[in-house]
């Protein structure tokens, strides 16, 4: 697998996040556009986590949206039912998501890809009935109504609520940058190398003392934590949650982000998230036809964009450093 080196990865990320950082100067007046930008950043985190799991660690996890929703609900419940400060609740929620990740990972990470996909997808499928059930209501999920009044985060006297989108945007940007750096460090560290070795030859890697299971479990827990954190952030930002997030269309949208960004082409997923969220907003007037088009898009994109945008650029620009060569337009 061809990975980007450290430098081009950082440059790519610096350009994307740099451009994002100055966007409020141009669109700061529009609440709707700021909301789209915030969602771009939140989904960039989730898509990057998924890419780390699927593209680099080779784990076919289909539970990313489930962990996002677990984090969102957990944080909302902590802050409403137990009166915990939202910032602390977010971290606790990340821990809950990580614990769920470990619980799910323990029985299935030793097995073949299809089993992992099955188990993680089953988690996604049973989460909705669980949140709506009497059990869910007992812990404060609000049943089919969902949770309506989630308190916003508050730090240094700034309230990060939907009324103050600029503040939320920069908080999201900070979170996205931190998460991206963590993911990059994992990819470029011993861990990334270990995963490459496991992918190339599992037995040889094992003979060198690389435990595939342990590595996979830790990465699974880490990405579940970050995804849960992103979900918690989302919950405190929009102020309400419902099980509608568990619909297949959102899941498929996340998949489109990864396909556009390229699986295993890490900073690509960030770009994929930004493109997908924006495109999805443009599809909004189509109403009931939107999920239909999303589904068709996956089929077409998987066939036509095998390596995502980065792969496409690399094919047409035979430079050594595709990230740099495309950055002026980034």
């Amino acid at each position, binding site marked *: 697998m061809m990975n980007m080196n450290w430098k081009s990865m950082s440059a790519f990320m610096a350009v994307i996040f740099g451009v994002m950082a100055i966007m409020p100067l141009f669109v700061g007046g529009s609440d709707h556009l700021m909301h789209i930008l915030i969602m771009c950043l939140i989904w960039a985190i989730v898509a990057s986590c998924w890419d780390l799991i*699927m593209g680099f660690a080779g784990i*076919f996890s*289909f539970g990313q949206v489930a962990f996002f929703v677990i984090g969102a609900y957990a944080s909302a419940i902590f802050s409403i039912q137990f009166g915990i400060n939202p910032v602390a609740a977010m971290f606790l929620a990340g821990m809950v998501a990580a614990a769920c990740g470990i619980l799910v990972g*323990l*029985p*299935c990470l*030793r*097995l*073949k*890809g*299809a*089993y992992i*996909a*099955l*188990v993680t*997808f*089953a*988690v996604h*499928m*049973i989460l909705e*009935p*669980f949140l709506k*059930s009497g059990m869910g209501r007992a812990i404060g999920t609000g049943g089919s109504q969902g949770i309506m009044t989630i308190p916003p985060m508050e730090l240094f006297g700034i309230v990060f609520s939907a009324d103050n989108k600029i503040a939320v945007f920069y908080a999201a940007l900070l979170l996205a940058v931190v998460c991206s750096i963590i993911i990059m460090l994992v990819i470029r560290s011993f861990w990334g190398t270990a995963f490459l070795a496991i992918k190339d030859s599992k037995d040889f890697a094992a003979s060198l003392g690389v435990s595939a299971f342990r590595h996979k479990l830790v990465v699974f827990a880490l990405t579940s934590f970050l995804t849960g954190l992103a979900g918690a952030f989302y919950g405190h930002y929009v102020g309400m949650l419902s099980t509608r997030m568990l619909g*297949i*269309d959102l*899941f*498929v949208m996340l*998949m489109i982000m*990864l*396909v556009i960004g390229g*699986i*295993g082409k890490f900073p690509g997923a960030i770009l994929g998230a930004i493109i997908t969220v924006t495109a999805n907003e443009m599809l909004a007037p189509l109403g*009931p*036809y939107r*999920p*239909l088009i*999303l*589904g*068709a*898009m*996956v*089929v077409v994109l*998987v*066939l036509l964009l*095998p390596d995502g945008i980065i792969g496409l650029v690399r094919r047409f620009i035979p430079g050594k450093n595709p990230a740099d060569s495309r950055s002026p337009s980034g």
Partner: protein
Amino acid sequence: MIYEYLDIFISGLTIGSVYALMAVGLTLIYGVSRAFNFAYGSFYSLGGYIAWIFMVAIGLRGGYAMVFALAVPLLMVFGYLTEKAIIAPLRRRSDWEVKVMMITLGLALFMDNGFQVLFGPRMKSLPPIMEGVIVLGEVYITKQDMMIFVLSISGILAFRWILNNTRTGMAVRAVAQNPNGAKIVGIPKDKIFAATFGISTVMVGIGGILLAQKYFVSPMGGWDILVKSWVITAFGGMGSIRGSLYAAFLLGMLEAFVGYWFGMSWVLFALFAVLLATLAIRPQGLMGKWG
């Protein structure tokens, strides 16, 4: 009391037989080509809608016999072409397995929303395949249940016969055992993959036609079926047809009894618990060949 349990037992037997048919179709496609079909549930709904179109919308003469006569070739062609169009092109790549999961998930979203646009979000009901009940002392068996059971079991037996006695069936088994070896002796591997996909589409589609009379057809109704078929397949053992059969009946019973004692909303949790326990204790399932 005992008769009540007998009723539930019969209900479990009926559902179990249809689940068996669908799980065998799923284990077949995974066993032969290692393709993980996320649109399996949508193919189930497709079967239900085909039956609805013929039975209710058009009001075809000849009833269900005619529906089956038309639906089987239709589903076969649909499955064959789907494989050729979206799965075969992916096979050349090293990461095709995950790409297949993604593309079939996209297909599922497309089909489900297509159903919704074409037929509306409301559930469609179908007339029963056979009216009337059989009375055995205190136990009532509807002829519909009996017919569903008989048809799904004959479906599985027919499939077994095809697999063991026809050239295509033998080629399918050869490809499942050793794709490269099969290719060396001149078996057209790609055609077999597509044909297998077609056969599995037929099996789940028939499942859809049979269960639609009991549980209605709805655009998003297939997701339950996908998860249940996968749990049965994992529990019975990936690639083992006999394992899938036993697992389908066991889990059909589980569903009937859990539904009766605790309510239908608990069925999915129970199945999920079975799945996790199976994978933790015996990952290859009851009698799996591929661990």
